[in-house]
């Protein structure tokens, strides 16, 4: 009964490949997010969606494309992966009170 679940947990791939990370929340929240934790451990927002509508896009390269088929799902597709994309990607959701609930993260390693 995990509240925010994302798959896969680990993703190892070659430069230039395309990959997707999936996220689902069963909390009934209206807003979902993708955050990136880089090598310096900063957690930075990439995107947020409210009821399937994109509301925040924080100067993320066009190679990153989020997709929200419904308000319980927010997937992240990454084209032409680069070495610098290696990081931990966290999905999160929230409802009103501004506290985010996070998934367990996807460790992406680009070789």
């Amino acid at each position, binding site marked *: 009964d995990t509240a925010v679940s994302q798959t896969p947990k680990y993703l190892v791939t070659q430069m230039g490949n395309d990959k997707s990370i999936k996220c689902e929340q069963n909390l009934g929240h209206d807003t979902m997010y993708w955050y990136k934790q880089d090598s310096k*451990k900063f957690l930075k927002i990439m995107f947020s969606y409210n009821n399937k509508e994109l509301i925040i896009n924080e100067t993320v390269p066009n190679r990153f494309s989020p997709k929200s088929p419904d308000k319980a799902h927010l997937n992240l597709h990454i084209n032409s992966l680069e070495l610098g994309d290696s990081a931990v990607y966290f999905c999160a959701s929230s409802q009103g009170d501004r506290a*985010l609930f996070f998934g367990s993260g996807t460790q992406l390693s680009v070789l």
Partner: protein
Amino acid sequence: DQQVKQNSPSLSVQEGRISILNCDYTNSMFDYFLWYKKYPAEGPTFLISISSIKDKNEDGRFTVFLNKSAKHLSLHIVPSQPGDSAVYFCAASTVGAQKLVFGQGTRLTINP
């Protein structure tokens, strides 16, 4: 431009003593502050929050203090327990922004 800063990358405290984690911010528009706790290979979990209209919020062993004039907040954990060993992130938001800005985290180690 890091708007939320946690200047101590690590902190080591004896079990049973008080742990104090600090956080500074630069954006005076922030009106809501949160602390998250993160274990390895897990996502951050919400711990406690405080609105800018308050200067203190308490929840069990955890208390958050906010000093708006100094743009500083702190998290007090007392008494500290071994299970409190984790990375603690401070975060802040502004009304309507629908996003959190995080500090870089402080690794807390509780020694038996």
